[in-house]
C-alpha cells in the first residue's frame, strides 16, 4: 500500500507539470509565509501610533483653520484619509514632513484654509480698551489669556500660539495679532537662492549675456 501510494504521487507529479508547479508554489509560499510571520512577531517595532507621529509634526497652534477643533483631531483625520494640506500655520514645511512620513506626494497648501504667513504672530490685547468680557479667554485653546470678568485681560506672550481664535469673539476688537520681532539670537543666514533662479533673473535683465 505505501509503495503503491508513493509511486502514484511521484508519477502524478512527474507526469503533470502543472501539479508540480502548484505543489512547488504552495510549499514555497508556506515556507516564506512562516518566515515572514515569524519575523513580524520576532522583530515587531513598538513605534508611536501614526496619529501621534502626525500630531508631532503639526505646529500645535490649535487654531482650527483646518476645520478641526485642534491639531490632534486633524492628525486623526489625516490618518483616516483626509488631505494633508489644510494647515496654514505649518505651511509647506509641515506638509512636506507629513508627506514624507506617510510616503505620499506633497501637495501645496490648500488656500481655502488660509495662507502661510511669513512671520509668527502673537496676540496682544490693547488693555485700556478691554472691557473684561472673558470671551477671548473662553476662545483660547491653550489657556494663554489671563483675566477675569470685568477685569482687564492680558496674553501670556510665551504661551500664545498665534492662532487668532481670540480675535473674532472680542466684542470691542481690542486684540491685535502682532508679529514677533526677530532678534539677533534667532537670526540666521538664509539658504542662498539657487543659482538657477538667480541666473534666470539676471539673464532676463541681460546681465549674463554672452
Amino acid at each position, binding site marked *: 500500500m505505501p509503495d503503491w501510494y508513493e509511486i502514484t504521487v511521484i508519477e502524478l507529479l512527474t507526469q503533470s507539470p502543472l501539479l508540480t508547479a502548484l505543489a512547488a508554489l504552495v510549499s514555497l509560499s508556506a515556507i516564506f509565509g512562516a518566515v515572514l510571520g515569524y519575523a513580524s512577531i520576532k522583530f515587531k517595532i513598538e513605534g508611536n501610533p501614526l496619529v501621534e507621529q502626525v500630531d508631532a509634526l503639526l505646529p500645535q497652534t490649535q487654531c482650527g483653520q483646518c476645520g478641526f477643533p485642534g491639531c490632534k483631531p486633524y492628525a486623526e483625520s489625516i490618518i483616516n484619509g483626509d488631505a494633508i494640506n489644510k494647515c496654514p500655520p505649518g505651511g509647506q514645511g509641515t506638509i512636506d514632513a507629513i508627506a514624507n512620513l506617510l510616503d505620499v506626494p506633497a501637495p501645496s497648501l490648500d488656500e481655502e484654509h488660509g495662507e502661510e504667513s511669513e512671520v509668527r504672530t502673537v496676540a496682544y490685547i490693547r488693555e485700556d480698551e478691554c472691557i473684561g468680557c472673558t470671551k477671548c479667554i473662553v476662545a483660547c485653546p*491653550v*489657556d494663554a489669556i489671563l483675566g477675569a470678568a470685568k477685569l482687564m485681560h492680558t496674553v501670556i506672550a510665551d504661551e500664545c*500660539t498665534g492662532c487668532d481664535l481670540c480675535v473674532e469673539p472680542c466684542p470691542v*476688537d481690542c486684540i491685535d495679532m502682532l508679529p514677533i520681532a526677530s*532678534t539677533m539670537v534667532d537670526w*540666521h543666514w538664509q539658504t542662498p537662492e539657487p543659482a538657477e533662479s538667480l541666473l534666470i533673473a539676471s539673464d532676463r535683465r541681460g546681465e*549674463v549675456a554672452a
Partner: protein
Amino acid sequence: MNSSLGHKASKQTPQTEQSDRPPGFTSNTVSNNADAIAQTIEVREIHDFHGGIHPPENKRQSTTAPIRDLPLPDQLILPLSQHIGVPAQAIVEVGEQVLKGQLIAEAFGPVSAAVHAPTSGVVTDINEYLIPHSSGMSAPCIVIKPDGEERWISHSGCKDFHDELPQTLLKHIRDAGIAGMGGAGFPSAIKLHPQQKIDTLIINAAECEPYITADDMLMREHAEEIITGIQILAHILGEPESVLIGIEDNKSEAWDALSAQLHNSNIELIEIPTKYPSGGEKQLIEILTGTQVPSGKLPAELGIVCLNVGTAFAIKQAVCEGIPLISRITTVTGKACAQAGNYRVLIGTPVSHVLSATGVDEAQCSRLVMGGPMMGFTLPDTAVPLIKTTNCILAPDQSELPTNDFAQACIRCGLCAEACPASLLPQQLYWYGRSQNHERLEAHNLFDCIECGACSYVCPSNIPLVQYYRASKGEIRQHEKDKIIADRARQRFETHQQRIEKEAQEKIARREARRAAALAKQNASTEKVSGSTSNSSSENTSESSPENSSNNSTTDSGQSDLVKAAMARLQNTQTSPEQQRQKLERALSAAQSKLQRYEKQLANPDSTDDPRTADQNNTLLAKIEGARLQHQDINARLDALPAQQGPSEDDV
C-alpha cells in the same frame, strides 16, 4: 607630516645647557632634529589634521610698520554684548562723567563680561546702535563722548601673582571684562575655571587666517608681557604639566621674540606648519596633542584649556597693572587701505574713524570685512564700532577679493571633502541643505562643521557652501525651538480640553443634583399639603437620599451665591451709567466697524480669480445680518439708557 620637534626643559628638571643655546635652535629646523632630540628630555611630536588649505597669506602688507596708535575718535560706541553669553548691564546714566578704565556695565550672571570706559568723557546715550554682526541688527550700546583728557580711574595690579590665590586672579580677570580675543569672545574667566583637572594649557598663536597679523605684531612687540600672562594662566590652572604655544612657521620674528623671553620656564614654543585652519581650537589641539575633542564636548573635558595669545596679553595687563580690556591690537589692511598695519584701537571706536585715520579709500572697496577673508563677516555700515573680538578690518578692492561669480552646478568633484578639516562630506551636506533634509544633515554631522570656509574656498563651482551650512544650522535650531513650543502648546491644549470636559461633566452633575433637589422639594410640598411638618419632611428626604443631601446643600448655597453675584452685577451696572454708556458706545463703534468690514468684503472679493462660493457668500451675509442686529440692539439700549438713568439717579 609628523615631525619631531624638540622643546624646552620641563619644570621638574631645569636644563642648564638650554640657556646657552638659542631656543629657536632646538625646534626650528628638521635638519637639527637629531641634535634637538639629544639636547632635550622630551620630544614633542606634532600631528597633522585632515584637510586644510593654503590660501595666499597676504600678511606682509601689515607687518612692515610697528603697532601704531590711532587718534581719539569723536565718540565711542560700546555694545553691552561683545562676548558670548548674557549681555552686560549698564551701570552709568546718560550725562554721567566717566574716567578711563571705569566700569560702565557690569557682568550679568556667570557667562558675561564687564565693559569699561576706554577713555574719559561723558556718557551721551544708552540706546540701540548698529553693532558688528552679520545680521546687521542693532543692540544696546553705551555711547561715550571723549573729553580728550584721558584721565585714568585709580587702578593697581598685583605685585607678584605667584603670591595670589587663583580665585583672586580670576576675579581680576573677570573684573577686567576679558573675553576671548581670537574670535568668538567667550568670557575668559569661565574658561579658566574648569571643573576638571587641567594638564595641558595651549596658547593659540597660530593666526592662520590670511591678512591678519594682530597676534603676530603683538608677539613681536610684547613678548615679555605675553610670557608673563601665560605664567599667570598656568598659575591659575594649577601649573599644568605642559604649557604649549602653537605658532605657525610663517612668523619667525614673533618666534624669535617669544623664545628670547622663555628663559628657563617650562613653556614649550612649538612651530607648526602653516596651514589654514590650524588656528581653529579643535585643529590646534589635534596638532599639538594628537587627540580630537569629542563632538559636543569641551577641551576641558580632556584636561586641555586653549586660549589666544592676545587674551594672555590682556590678562597680564589686567592682573599686573589692573588695566581692564579697553583697547586691542587690530590689523587694518587690504588694497583699499593706504596705511595698512596694526593699530592699537580703543574698544568702541567706530569703523568709519579707523578707515579715515588709516587712509582707506571707501570708494574702492565694495565690502568691508571684520575679521579675515576666510571667516570674517561683512559689515552692514561703517558706523559700527570695533569690539573686543575685532582682530582685523579688511578693506579689499574689487580685484583683491572679487565678488563671487554665479554658482555653477556641483559636479561632486570632492575637493571640498579633501579640504574639510572636520572630515565632513561638504557636498553631501550641500545637497541635503538644499533639500532641507534635516535628518540627513544631522546624520552627516552638520553640527561638527566649524564654518572655516575651506570647502567654499576650493569649490570650482563657486557654491556658497558655508552659507548653506549656516542656514541649515539656523533652521535646525529654529526647528528644535519650535518643537519645544509646540510640545508645550500641545500640553496646554490637552489640559484645556480636559478642563472643559471636566466642567461639562460637573455641569451635568449639578443639573442632576438640581433636578433631584427640585423633586425633593416637590415631594416636600406634597407632604406639606398632606399635613406633615416641613421639619420631618426634610428629615425624610435626607433619609431617603442620604447621598444627595450634601449635594443639595452645596447646590443650594451655590445657587444663592449665583443670585447674589447676579444682584451685585446688576447693582454694579446700575451704579455706573456713564461707564455703561461709554461701554455701549464703544460696542457700537465696534459693531459699526465690523459691519463695514463685512460689507466691504462682500463688495470687493479679495481675489478676482477665486469665485466666492455660495456658502461663503451666505455666511458673510449672515454675519452682516448679525452685525446689523447687534448694531440695532446696542442703539436701542443706548436710547433706553437716559430713561433708565433718571430713576437710578433718583434712587441714589
